[in-house]
């Protein structure tokens, strides 16, 4: 043990002092640590209010007093009491009684703001929690622990990004690029020979010189392939394998893009303190506290949809360059090539067509997209343009595998024409899409704003906890904790009398410090976390019991003051060994566990640290303060 830790834990005493006394600064320091602990644990005594948040979604929007009043009045008409409201211009909070009022209230406020088309699309109405922590505590940076989903209620998703599909889509893209390169260079290939397997493209040429020319052309233009001359279908051919680094790049792009899009979508859903986080190579965790309808969340989060704007093909167009769709019962032939896709959309709002009051989506394109749209439409005035809605729908099926039925995920592609219209004049950055239903228009606007997913995703885990179960968990957890604490406190007084009383003060300091550390670290309190706190209470007194048992034993060999000193010193070695091994386990639990196991591990680990401090240092200080330096005849232990 280093000298520093000895000093901190009060092990080596200056011999000049009376036995078992500390200098005053030491008592003060310990009192200070506990005092700071109390300050930072205190906010947990102020449970936050349920609140409805109105957030300005566009840069120039302001949550004015008029809007706040309109929302408040709507809520009160709906029978919901508003306990208070506040606004900082961009964000406003309306406090309500409970989770049920909050959910219903959100709908009411949303409807009230949507009545007026001018405000409807400028604000996001979200569920949130409003702090009730007193100002002075907040000014010190003290805040309560946030509740995990099992306490607050909400939805947890684990989404798996379909990496194989991301790579396959990209290969198709690459192939199109290769083909146009070969066309530009005037190199002829055997169209029927082209085959894509995994990350490899195989293609055949009519003769060896064609192949060599192709190889040179591809090598000079693309560095992403390993190119091997091989015979394909009996012709001289090429195997082009995408480099591993490039595959990783595609996968990284897919997950990053999906994360971004999910964040935007969650933002639009109106959730307070959502969590959207990458987990491992191909998974994303989404936690939505307060959300009760997981079906609604799934519809928005997991939607893989995009728009394509294409020209309706002229009659003389090559068949291979066209694609036929059915629109309002008749076939429409479109060009395969699209003018722009939804990726070029920077703004999308659902509003209403002023002429017939039908829902529509107003779209703004970025510079590049607007330019392309303008170029294509100016030469085609009088022709028709179509908007194609593309969606990849996640599906699952049961398949036999090794004699067992297992679930397999796949996706199906749906393409649907949502509008075909004659181009009256050259289009620019802004235009609108009509011919969609209200809900569809709303979702479409949201999805276009949030950005498309780069690859489809499958839900591989979902947990929804109802608000009532969450509240019940908090109540039961707190009850079990308080009763457990009281039982232990009572036992300690019965078993160890005055020393037991001192140990109890240390135990309460322990709980305060544990809660303070968790609050400061921003740990999330979960049900297993509460179990961890309760167990810490049960285990924490172990250190004191060890010390007291040792003191009793030493009292048979030496004087009281010497027994106290020796008891603490001897027991410390044991306490240190025993707690360090438990700490190892906590670290392993945290590293390897997931969900409930992690929450338990965090409390366990912090609990061990605070226990060693309080059981050894705080108890020692209390004993020194009350017993040290005096000539004692008897010890109440």
């Amino acid at each position: 043990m280093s000298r520093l830790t000895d000093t901190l834990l009060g092990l080596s005493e200056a011999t000049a002092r009376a036995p078992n006394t500390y200098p005053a600064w030491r008592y003060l320091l310990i009192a200070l640590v506990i005092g700071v602990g109390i300050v930072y644990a205190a906010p947990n005594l102020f449970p936050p209010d349920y609140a409805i948040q109105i957030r300005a979604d566009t840069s120039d929007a302001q949550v004015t007093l008029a809007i706040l009043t309109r929302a408040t009045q709507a809520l009160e008409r709906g029978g919901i009491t508003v306990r208070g409201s506040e606004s900082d211009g961009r964000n406003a909070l309306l406090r309500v009684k409970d989770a049920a009022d909050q959910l219903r209230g959100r709908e009411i406020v949303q409807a009230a703001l949507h009545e007026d088309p001018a405000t409807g699309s400028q604000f996001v109405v979200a569920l949130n929690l409003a702090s009730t922590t007193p100002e002075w505590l907040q000014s010190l940076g003290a805040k309560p622990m946030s509740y995990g989903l099992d306490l607050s209620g909400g939805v947890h998703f684990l989404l798996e990004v379909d990496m194989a599909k991301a790579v396959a889509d990209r290969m198709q893209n690459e192939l199109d690029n290769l083909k146009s390169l070969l066309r530009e260079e005037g190199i002829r290939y055997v169209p029927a020979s082209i085959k894509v397997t995994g990350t490899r493209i195989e293609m055949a040429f009519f003769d060896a010189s064609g192949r060599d020319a192709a190889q040179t052309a591809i090598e000079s233009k693309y560095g992403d392939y390993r190119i091997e001359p091989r015979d394909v279908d009996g012709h001289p051919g090429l195997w082009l394998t995408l480099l591993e680094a490039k595959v990783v790049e595609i996968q990284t792009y897919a997950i990053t893009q999906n994360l971004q899009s999910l964040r935007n979508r969650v933002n639009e859903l109106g959730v307070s303190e959502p969590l959207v986080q990458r987990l491992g190579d191909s998974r994303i965790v989404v936690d939505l506290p307060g959300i009760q309808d997981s079906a609604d969340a799934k519809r928005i989060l997991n939607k893989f949809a995009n728009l394509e704007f294409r020209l309706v093909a002229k009659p003389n167009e090559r068949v291979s360059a066209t694609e036929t769709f059915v629109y309002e019962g008749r076939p429409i032939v479109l060009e395969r090539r699209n003018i722009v896709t939804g990726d070029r959309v920077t703004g999308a709002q659902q509003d209403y067509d002023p002429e017939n009051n039908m829902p529509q989506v107003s779209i703004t394109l970025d510079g590049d997209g607007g330019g392309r749209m303008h170029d294509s439409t100016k030469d085609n005035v009088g022709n028709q343009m179509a908007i194609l809605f593309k969606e990849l729908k996640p599906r699952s099926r049961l398949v036999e595998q090794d004699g067992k039925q297992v679930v397999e995920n796949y996706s199906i592609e749906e393409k649907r024409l949502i509008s075909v219209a004659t181009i009256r004049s050259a289009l620019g950055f802004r235009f609108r899409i009509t011919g969609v239903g209200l809900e569809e228009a709303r979702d479409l606007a949201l999805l276009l704003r949030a950005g498309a997913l780069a690859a489809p995703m499958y839900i591989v885990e979902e947990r929804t906890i109802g608000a009532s179960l969450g509240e019940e968990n908090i109540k039961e957890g707190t009850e079990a904790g308080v009763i457990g604490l009281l039982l232990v406190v009572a036992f300690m007084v019965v078993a160890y009398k005055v020393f037991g009383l001192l140990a109890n003060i240390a135990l309460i300091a322990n709980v305060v410090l544990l809660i303070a550390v968790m609050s400061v670290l921003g740990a999330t309190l979960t049900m297993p976390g509460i179990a961890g706190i309760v167990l810490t209470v049960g285990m924490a007194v172990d250190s004191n019991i060890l010390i007291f048992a040792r003191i009793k034993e030493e009292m048979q060999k030496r004087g009281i003051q010497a027994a106290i000193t020796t008891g603490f010193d001897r027991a410390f070695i044991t306490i240190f060994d025993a707690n360090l091994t438990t700490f190892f386990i906590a670290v392993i639990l945290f590293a390897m566990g997931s969900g409930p196991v992690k929450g338990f591990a965090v409390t366990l680990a912090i609990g061990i640290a605070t226990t060693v401090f309080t059981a050894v240092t705080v108890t020692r200080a209390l004993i020194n303060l009350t017993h040290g330096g005096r000539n004692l005849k008897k010890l109440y232990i």
Partner: protein
Amino acid sequence: MRSLRDYNIDFMGVRRTAIAISIALVLLSVGSLVFQGLNWGLDFTGGTLVEVTFPSAASPQEVRAALDGKGFVHGVVQNFGTERDLLIRMPPQEGREAALLGNAVFEALQSAFPGVELRRSEFVGPAVGEELRETGGLAMIVSLLSVMIYVMFRFTTKFAIGGIVALAHDAVLTLGAFSLFQWTFDLTGLAAVLAIIGFSINDTIVIFDRIRENFRSMRRATPEETINVSINQTLDRTISTSFTVMLVLGALAALGGDVVHGFALALIVGVVAGVYSSVYIAANLLVILGMTREDLLTPEKEKESSAP
């Protein structure tokens, strides 16, 4: 509290009987694990679970019939907690989205029984379940090994063997209890087993520490006597600590609600096993392995410097 001198129980005198009991219990646990297996929870099997509350007492049969009628087959419906609460487990259904099954079941219930409320709904994909099982097993092994290495480093190899066998014993008995009583073994259950590994080592270390100390100071005693004295000396603490832990576990089991209930029950089994194994497995193995004073004669600088 009585003074420590009062304890003079001949723990090691009955060590052969204790070993027989331990072997019998381990065999029973392993037998149950092999023949009956664990009642794996949704976390590990994958599937869909929906827990609902009815406005008044609900009959699982009726609910099951209603679900059958809507085409949800092979579901298991049972009361959970109170008679108003029902737990429904659904295997994957042909022709239905696995990820949307929970929503579909709840919608079907809502239309058949107006006023029904969702408490929780869980869906775990099959691949995730398998992974959780793998990392869970791995976590168990890694924690056992890391404890062993630490004890080897702080004490000696013989102590490490005694400690690890005791820990494995506790883990096996707890898993055995899960299997024997068919408690649902989910992530919370796994956390309980891992927590037992953490807490049980506490007891073992305390006794080991005392044994090490006494081996140095009691020069004339036989190893068996030394170990016996050490167990007696720590008995006061062993009883008190197990009692306080039992107090909080009792509070958790009785008041903590459904999720924590299983966790607390498992820990109670584990704590009992842990106290017993610290004495009769860990300390006993030291006797069997022929622990002598000489084993501790290698000077441990770290310890000597911190002892007063």
